[in-house]
């Protein structure tokens, strides 16, 4: 049982290492010395410990043992602390943070749309709209498998030899009834180390007040960083600390020592970590935050089972409870933001008409937003469970919101209904905006352009199309076609009126003569009106190439036959001076100039013979 040097009594060995008694004992550490010395000391402690249970001791001997054990425990406490300090370094973070990104774990749909760069932008700033549309979006994300951060990965925080030394010490301390001291030393050292790791991972200590004051860009970045850090903290850092506690303390004494030590170490840091997510879930709701909030929600959801795993003891309950509370608050916040968004679209107040009747920035913004929603449809679909509140806004004569009958859409999910509702609101808003155009015809063009854009966006995305459904898509198509028709009628009715038959014959029958003056007036009117239309509507814009062509052709289909037949019938009755345009001229003017958005120079127009 004994080593050769066991003839030295236990008490003496312990007293030799009393750091209050000798300089040497204070300066040197037992566990940094040779293995024999360590073993000798531990044996000595064991012996003294055993003799404590001995009831046949005299009062004097009792007193000595009482004193000696305290000296031994104080010493062991110092040794314990020293081993921990010299072998504890903050966790290695570079290799970890490189292997994860802030990409979400739930699959996003991968349809990628490049922004509409080929469309010309409005030169004029539309202030209120710019406020919404300058919000930055998260980029579309594609599914990335992050093998190293999807599950718990424990690391060895302390070399194995030190671990077993620590366990030896812990065993003696706990047996002697010094459990509390042991836990406290352990907790205080490890907590500092965890704190150091937190700093390396960039986990910040921000208050709710701080977060309320942050700009969105900065907050956006912090959330991304938190998501990355949280994965490492829970799956690596805390899991490893738990493992270390088990290695050192498991099954020592009766009091679940390993759980106690673990909680002592991580309770503060874990609470600090979650406080950030909590502060985000409480902060002001604005629509542009929605997708980052969803990212945060998803990461937390993904971490939940690991959180339950790592924090499975009774004392850790408050942490589990807090994380589920945060999750539900994030969900609530997301729902609120969607609602805010719908409200913002309805109330978006800019009245300055977009020049040329082209795509309004609001339309772009909303369609982009909707596309992102469809990317996040798995998450959002789970959170959005109630239909949009269309509300009875109609008080009095003027409606304050679109009318929509959801009974036609019973098969569709609440989220899909929200999308439809958003488009309906957008449309309603655009209708209102179109009324600010002085020219009716431009108003219709504007509606045509924008609703067509909406339709194209929906058709361009399979998910969107599925969610919104063909029924509503048909409705929208009808709307823009109707707008196109209305536009044509508004513009060309006057023009075509000049080419009508009635009123040109002096006696009212075909074979009679033609009133030359009336004919002259007609041609003059036609030229003037067509000129005006040509000049004005060249500045108007139909950004979509195919739509532009269709519109032009549709115009020509009515204009050309009418003009050709008019010319045919009446050109011989009047001098050529009054005939400004050939059929070709008209065709060119319409096909080349209309809706290009450029001014037409009068000199460049050729006059055909």
């Amino acid at each position, binding site marked *: 049982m004994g080593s050769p040097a066991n003839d030295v009594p236990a008490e003496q060995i312990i007293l030799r290492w009393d750091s209050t008694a000798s300089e040497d004992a204070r300066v040197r550490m037992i566990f940094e010395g040779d293995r024999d010395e360590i073993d000798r000391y531990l044996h000595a402690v064991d012996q003294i410990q055993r003799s404590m249970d001995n009831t046949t001791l005299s009062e004097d001997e009792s007193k000595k043992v*009482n*004193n000696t054990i305290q000296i031994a425990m104080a010493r062991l406490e110092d040794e314990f602390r020293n081993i921990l300090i010299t072998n504890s370094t903050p966790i290695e973070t570079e290799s970890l943070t490189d292997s994860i990104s802030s990409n979400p774990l739930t699959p996003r749909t991968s349809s990628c749309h490049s922004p509409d760069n080929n469309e010309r932008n409005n030169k004029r700033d539309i202030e209120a709209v710019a406020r919404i549309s300058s919000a930055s979006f998260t980029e579309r994300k594609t599914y990335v498998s992050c093998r190293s951060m999807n599950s718990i990965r424990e690391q060895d925080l302390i070399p194995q030899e030190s671990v077993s030394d620590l366990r030896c010490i812990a065993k003696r301390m706990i047996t002697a*009834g010094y459990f509390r*001291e042991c836990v406290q030393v352990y907790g205080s*050292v490890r907590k*500092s180390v965890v704190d150091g790791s937190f700093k390396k991972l960039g986990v910040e*200590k921000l208050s709710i007040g701080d977060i309320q004051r942050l700009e969105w860009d900065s907050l956006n970045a912090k959330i991304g960083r938190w998501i990355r850090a949280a994965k490492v903290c829970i799956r690596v850092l805390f899991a490893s600390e738990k493992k270390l506690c088990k290695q050192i303390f498991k099954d020592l004494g009766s009091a679940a020592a390993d759980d106690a030590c673990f909680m002592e170490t991580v309770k503060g840091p874990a609470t600090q970590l979650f406080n950030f997510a909590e502060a985000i879930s409480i902060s002001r709701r604005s629509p542009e935050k929605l997708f980052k909030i969803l990212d945060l929600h998803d990461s937390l959801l993904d971490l939940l089972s690991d959180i339950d795993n790592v924090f499975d003891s009774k004392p850790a309950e408050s942490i589990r409870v807090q994380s589920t*509370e945060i999750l539900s608050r994030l969900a609530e916040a997301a729902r609120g933001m969607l609602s805010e968004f719908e409200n913002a679209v*309805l109330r978006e107040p800019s009245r300055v008409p977009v020049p040329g009747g082209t795509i309004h920035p609001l339309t772009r913004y909303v369609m982009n937003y909707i596309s992102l929603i469809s990317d996040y449809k798995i998450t959002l679909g789970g959170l959005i469970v109630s239909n949009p509140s269309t509300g009875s806004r109609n008080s009095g004569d003027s409606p304050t919101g679109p009318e929509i009958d959801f009974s036609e859409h019973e098969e569709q999910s609440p989220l899909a209904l929200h999308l439809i509702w958003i488009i309906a609101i957008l449309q309603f808003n655009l209708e*209102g905006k179109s009324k600010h155009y002085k020219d009716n015809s431009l108003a219709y063009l504007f509606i045509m352009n924008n609703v067509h854009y909406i339709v194209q966006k929906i058709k361009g995305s399979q998910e969107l199309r599925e969610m919104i459904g063909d029924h509503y898509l048909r409705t929208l198509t009808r709307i823009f076609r109707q707008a196109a028709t209305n536009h044509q009628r508004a513009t060309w009715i006057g023009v075509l009126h000049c080419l009508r038959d009635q009123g040109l014959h002096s006696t009212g029958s075909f074979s009679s003569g033609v009133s030359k003056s009336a004919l002259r007036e007609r041609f003059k009117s036609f030229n003037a009106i067509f000129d005006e239309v040509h000049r004005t509507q060249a500045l108007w814009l139909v950004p979509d190439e195919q739509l532009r062509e269709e519109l032009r052709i549709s115009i020509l289909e009515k204009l050309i036959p009418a003009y050709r037949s008019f010319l045919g019938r009446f050109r011989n009755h009047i001098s050529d001076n009054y005939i400004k345009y050939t059929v070709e001229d008209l065709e060119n003017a319409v096909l080349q100039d209309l809706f290009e958005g450029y001014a037409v120079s009068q000199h460049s127009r050729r006059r055909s013979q």
Partner: protein
Amino acid sequence: MPPTDNQGSFLNRISIRRNQVVYEQEVEDLEQFQKHVADRLSELFHPPEDTNSSDPPETLLSIAWFRKLLDVFLCCEAEFKAVVIMGRDANNFVKSPLDRLIPEHLDRTVKALDICTAIIHGIDLLLHWKKLAQIAVDSLQKKPIGEGDVKRAKKALNTLLSSITIDDKEKSAENHHHSTKSGASSKDHTTIGNLRSLSYSFARSWSASKQIQAMSSNLTAPRGGEPTGLVVPVYLMSSVLVFVMWAMVSAIPCQERTGLGAHLQLSKQFTWAQPMIGLQEKIGEDWKKKEKKGRSGLLDETQRLENLGLSLVEFADGFSFPVEAEKAEEVAAMVAEMAEICGRMDEGLGALQMQVRELFNRIVRSRAETLDVLDHVNKVTTPVPY
């Protein structure tokens, strides 16, 4: 309103009368609310004499007293929300002066949330102190007390006392009165293992004291004569909120509390403020006294632990085996008292922590609901601009 016919006038009178009744009911609700608050606070600070004597009143600023205080606050808050926010014509909220006063109140609630977080963290420190005290209790309850027990107790008590008296601002360990001179451990004692420096909930610049100051600086007593009758209740709720936060911060360790004593001023003109003012004066006094010696906070249990700790360390310094009977009895009494305090902390601190968390959740929810009401009003009253 000239009636067009008999029936019209009858209906008119009914509806006017009905509005009047509703209005009177609303005014009465508001007055009841204020009365309830005044009653509850008064009971808390001056408990009635004739309660059953088996239930002694809680010592002011003890854990049990704080639990009662938070209970009272939660009741007031619930009534406030029901009577003042939810039961009202919300159009009042967007007109002066409520259009300024309610957002100010909401701003205070944000600060209150941060303070709750800091307090929850502070309670962890209290639990840590309890554990240290428990070591001393266990050692000194041995019969007879041996040298080893005394040394052990003294070590724990010294750690406890140095943690209690250390400044909220991080001072080096040498500046306090009770430093240990334990050997090998001191080389890294101040850096690693200095628990107090790790107990910051927030960034270094955050200060509990400044938060309280900001909360109370724009809290001005209303002048009265205001038609909706809502201004005083809002002022009441804000005052109670600030008071409760201030009291908690004064008692429980919290990050950065310089100058806390002066940071609350309550107006004397309202009945419900009287109990709070009395306590505010007492806390202010005590805080000033204690501030010079380090800021452990005014929690009754902490004060008593500190006093007992000092006495027991004194005993330990003069210890020689065996202890004479008279001394032993004296020490036993002190240890028993310390044991009792530990028991109370054991029982009460966990519950208090949960209560503060409940308070946190409640404030979050009320904030959200109030913001919803305000949003809704803005939506309905802002015309669609076409």
